[in-house]
């Protein structure tokens, strides 16, 4: 039937740290500050407007953690929403039939060439044999630049003097296939999204290769224009990912949010320096903090959360130690349990709990178990729930009949409940009984 302690813990958690709910005025005031912060961070005007509206919906009526002001609680929600919007970091795709072709595109000066070398270095570390392709015949010494980087990192660079970029790329692919080089990284020329001829050229390269990945390399300090640029590249060429460069500076990087929001394209990497090893995975939580820029508030929130978590644990231990937990409590918690999802994360916060869970194996209850337990307890009188020790033979029989179970089932529930009570008491006192697993069958 029931086989875990999670129900009791649940109820305790839910009652702790409530300080009331966020009112509309609180939210509006806080969001004014947030809006300013996001605009200062170069998040696109429209993206900010939509984001703030969405947060407002979530924030009104939300619970406030103890030790946070309403404004700070709003910021907490904003931060969480930002992280969600920025999305999970995505991996590079691989072509089903090699070689994988990665095409780097973007405006002039965004950092494509340096990024191409960084990507090659990273992929080689992962056991590949990348080929760099110098597909920019326009910019003075662009080909030299890539060749020098190739020499510095000992990665081959394919060039073809006088050839058009689409021709260079197809020739490079041919060579890569014959030499078994994989992936092939195309470093294209920087170009304006409003330059029809050059955008057509990109489309042509894409048509003739075709690439597994088309990554927009964008400067993290780009302002409101980021949206236009990304939209245009997305429309004309089609993007599979974004690499944000020059994040080692102090730009807030709002462009990341704008581009993500407007194109739906995931951020795959971030560039954090000029050296060829300065390419990192994208961390949405770090990026969210950076964009929001409310460093001091965010650390306050972090501390508040820690305190909250600690408080929960302490309250819980108190209750367990007092063993004042009765079947009424138990019924209450089970109902809450039904609304919850997996409790493992909460469980792990309690000292000793994760060890306990490991020993007990999977301590989750299933639906029918819960229904049966609920039925039994509902058939009890309040007095019986508060003082289960008064339940003798005739009461047992009545309860069984009322719930459609057998007296043996009722007995089993009571027995397990008593053991659980004792165990909680022992745990709160720091001692664990020897045969824990037995409790959970």
């Amino acid at each position, binding site marked *: 039937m029931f086989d875990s302690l999670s129900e009791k813990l649940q109820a305790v958690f839910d009652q702790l740290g409530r300080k009331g709910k966020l009112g509309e005025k609180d939210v509006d005031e806080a969001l004014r500050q947030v809006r*300013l912060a996001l*605009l*200062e*961070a*170069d998040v*696109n*005007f429209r993206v900010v407007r939509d984001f703030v509206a969405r947060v407002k919906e979530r924030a009104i009526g939300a619970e406030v953690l103890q030790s946070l002001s309403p404004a700070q609680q709003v910021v907490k929600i904003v931060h969480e929403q930002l992280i969600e919007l920025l999305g999970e970091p995505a991996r590079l795709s691989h072509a089903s039939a090699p070689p994988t072709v990665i095409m780097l595109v973007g*405006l*002039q*000066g*965004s*950092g494509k060439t340096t990024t191409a070398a960084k990507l090659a270095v990273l992929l080689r570390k992962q056991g590949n044999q990348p080929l760099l392709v110098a597909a920019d015949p*326009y*910019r*003075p*010494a*662009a080909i*030299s*630049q*890539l*060749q*020098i*980087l190739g020499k*510095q990192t000992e990665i081959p660079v394919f060039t073809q003097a006088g050839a058009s970029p689409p021709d260079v790329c197809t020739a490079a692919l041919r060579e890569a296939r014959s030499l078994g080089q994989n992936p092939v990284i195309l470093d294209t020329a920087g170009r*304006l*999204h*409003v*330059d*029809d*001829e050059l955008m057509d050229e990109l489309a042509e390269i894409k048509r003739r290769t075709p690439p597994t990945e088309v990554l927009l390399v964008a*400067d993290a*300090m*780009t*302002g*409101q*224009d*980021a949206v*236009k*640029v990304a939209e245009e590249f997305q429309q004309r060429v089609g993007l599979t990912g974004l690499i944000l460069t*020059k994040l*080692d*500076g*102090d*730009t*807030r990087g*709002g*462009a990341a949010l704008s581009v993500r929001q407007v194109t739906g394209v995931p951020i795959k990497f971030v560039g954090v320096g*000029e050296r060829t090893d300065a390419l990192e995975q994208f961390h949405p939580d770090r990026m969210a903090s950076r964009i929001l820029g409310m460093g001091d508030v965010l650390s306050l929130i972090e501390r508040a959360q820690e305190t909250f978590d600690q408080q929960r644990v302490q309250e819980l231990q108190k209750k367990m130690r007092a063993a004042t937990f009765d079947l009424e409590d138990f019924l209450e918690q089970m109902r809450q349990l039904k609304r919850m999802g997996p409790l493992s994360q909460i469980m792990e916060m309690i000292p000793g709990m994760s060890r306990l869970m490991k020993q007990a194996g999977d301590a989750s209850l299933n639906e029918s178990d819960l229904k049966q337990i609920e039925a039994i307890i509902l058939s009890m009188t309040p007095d019986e729930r508060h003082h289960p020790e008064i339940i003798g033979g005739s009461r047992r029989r009545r309860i069984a009949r009322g719930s459609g179970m057998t007296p043996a089932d009722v007995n089993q529930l009571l027995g397990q409940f008593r053991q659980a009570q004792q165990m909680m008491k022992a745990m709160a006192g720091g001692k664990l009984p020897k045969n824990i697993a037995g409790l959970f069958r």
Partner: protein
Amino acid sequence: MFRRIFRREEKDPKLEAGVRKTRSSFFGRIAVLLRRTEVTEDVWDELEELLIGADVGAATTDVLLQEMRGRFRRGEFRTGDQLNEALQERLVELLRTDTASLPLLSEGLTVVLMIGVNGVGKTTTIAKLGHYWRGEGRRVMLAAGDTFRAAGIEQLEVWADRIQIPCVGAQPGADPAAVVYDGIAAATARGFDTLIVDTAGRLHTKTNLMEELKKVRRVVDRHNVPARSLLVLDATTGQNAVLQARAFAQAAGLDGIVVTKLDGTAKGGVLFSIVRELGAPVRFIGTGERVDDLSPFDPEAFVASLFAVDAVDVDQ
């Protein structure tokens, strides 16, 4: 109407289309909406969106619009057209500085130091400036001071060769201060009066690199030669440009700004904040990758073209 500063000599239909595309942007729409006679709350809201959308910045936009609102309430103007005019005038005012009317280059040798973060267009701008100043009768020499970036020196040398202007080179990894030293020696010896020095792009947050820049500036100053630091800013940059400008001004001095890549859709609105705060004038704008894609900065033309109405906009 007024001269577009993006006008080119050839009538290339693709180029014309491109330019039209860039101008049907935020500021273009301002003029359309302000042609309405009434100034309603909606108008103020749209103005805010347009200004912020052009990277003017939330704070500066707020100050600007509060001011306009105050003047409107006091009855200084009544119609949308009048608001349009007043706003344009105010924006032009923000771009005026004390030094703007003074010549950048002095008689005798002037060393122009090109500074800025990575990828803004310093090297290309040097080629453009060399070509421009030579056209004005100066004797120009270049110094390839970007000894860090792969093919940084070569990039400038290719340009120098194209436009036939002498360039003092260096070995990759050499001390940029040494390159400047050599450049000044060569220019002095050979009677050149304009030395444009390229420096490696650097993020203003890198203390050691900013120290290096200070050292380069000191080398020039020690020669008792007039030095001018020109900050190159990318028009697509957002509010970080203000931080960049401050830091570079502090390290190498700031005598002027060149804003590049204005042939895109970014409007460079951040310039208003920068000029207002640092008092350094915008000297040139860059509008393409060719050597003649450079124009001396004209605040009125700049603001006017931002407000220009296109045939495409009128329907909106």
